[in-house]
């Protein structure tokens, strides 16, 4: 899924901040912070069966659309802060991008952030399911 890097340049400082964490506890702390700073959270009262991402250990929901300027808009929410944090970073990455670019993007920013060391098989799977869902929805919006 994409050789080299496929994330937008504006994500670079965030990727760097994560990759410089001393250990995974520090990385979790940062994820908690991003969860709070989520630019476009989906409030729990909009969580529905149709927008649920399956194969996640936590409840996770995504709603994708385009904003007034034609840019991609990802609203998403999860009950766990760790997942919410990853979603926040993802939203920061994709919001405002051209939907066709989102549909082409890879999940490599998570690797670069150093998240992978904490991703056991099904956590990795949960993240990928979320990411693929976003990409699919982006594809539909092209």
């Amino acid at each position, binding site marked *: 899924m994409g050789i080299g890097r496929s994330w937008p340049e504006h994500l670079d400082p965030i990727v760097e901040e994560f990759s410089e964490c001393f250990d*995974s*506890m520090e990385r*979790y*702390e940062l994820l*908690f912070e991003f969860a709070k700073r989520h630019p476009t959270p989906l409030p729990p009262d909009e969580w529905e069966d149709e927008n649920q991402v399956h194969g996640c250990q936590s409840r996770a929901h995504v709603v994708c659309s385009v904003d007034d300027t034609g840019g991609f808009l990802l609203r998403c929410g999860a009950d*766990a*802060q*760790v997942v919410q944090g990853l979603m926040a970073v993802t939203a920061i990455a994709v919001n405002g991008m051209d939907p066709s670019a989102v549909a082409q993007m890879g999940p490599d920013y998570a690797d670069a952030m150093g998240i992978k*060391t*904490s991703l056991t098989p099904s956590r990795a799977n949960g993240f990928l399911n979320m990411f693929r869902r976003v990409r699919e929805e982006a594809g539909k919006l092209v």
Partner: protein
Amino acid sequence: MYSPHAALIGGRSFDQCGDDLPLDIEAIRADFPILSRRLPNGKQLVYFDNAATSQKPKCVIDAMSRYYEEYNSNAHRAIHTLADEATAALEGARDMISSYFGTSSDQLIYTSGATEAINLVAYGWAREKLGKGDVVVLTEMEHHADIVPWQQLSIDKGVEVRFVPIDTESFTLDMDALEVALDGASLVCVVHTSNVLGVRNPIEKIIEMSQSVGARVLIDCAQGAPHERIDFDSLGADFIAISAHKMAGPTGIGCILVKKDAMAEMGPFMTGGSMIKRVTMEKSTFQDGNAMFETGTPRIAEAIGWGAAVEWLNQFDMGEIHDHINDVASWTAAQMREIPGIKIYGEPEREDSSGAISFLHESIQSLDLALLLDEGGFAVRTGHHCAQPLMDALGVPSTNRASFWVYNTMGEAEAFIDHLRYIVERFS
């Protein structure tokens, strides 16, 4: 002569009067290869998920490997040496397991676990005996395995299902409500020890009360058997369900213990080979007793592994094991109560508790808490623990749960408390 039985005996010498020696936890830990495991992040594993499944001592793992490497063969009805050895080991395991549970081997029916054990009673006994007008009494703290089969029976046969509530202050069964619920009951199904709360129910009293109104009693001992010696004949329950994997045995096996007169009332459940006397195209006749309920190729390796587990446990005094677990759990629970925002559901400090600690933090979501604990090497479970009616009564969707067994140490508990404090300070 080659003796598969000798192969079952573990590393330490067999000693039934272990109550003279204090438990040597370090020696016990050495029996469990997995306890020296480090997680991918380099952290030493601290396994506090024992109520979900226990770890297995090397003698159990080896007994199964030895079966496959030396005398694997389908059991029963064969003349050759391997088949004979496999049959002897299978039946030897049945003798060992049933006598561990204080009963004779003809009152033990192998199943794939406690869940199948309860389903066997629902299909083999209740569907034969119960119908409209009959009442099955459950409790609010049952595991789904002891709820859903009875709801299905209710749908199919019109049986009434009643739930005895718990007191959410003391986290115990409401015995007055039980008294009322027993009116007209045909079957009472109660969990010996709650997998969520660690509460050990007064099953002796419940058995007595139930039988005095003429009801049969099923006790779900999935959590009870790893924590105290279950003596079927003297308890007097009609049915007792047990899983091997929670008491040092392998996955894929368990049993239902059934009193002879209750067994006589049962009809066949799963059918096929072995459980028959004679099959013709017109009709089939069945074996008597427990043989009627075991069909297909037996769980041979699994039975042998469970036999070895029971033999391993037999070295110890279960009372001492209980006390050790209770010490670790009580200390841990007391420390947790000092940590700001932590709430414990249950009273793990109670003397007869299994020590399972269900807890939540007021602001750190349970899944996050589990992840952060895992990052420190601590394996705890998170979820509804297959006990949603109990969760509803507690008013929460899920809890975190730390649960202990014989090989857990005070040192592990201290490390856990340190890490939990650190998490709460940093993330709440």
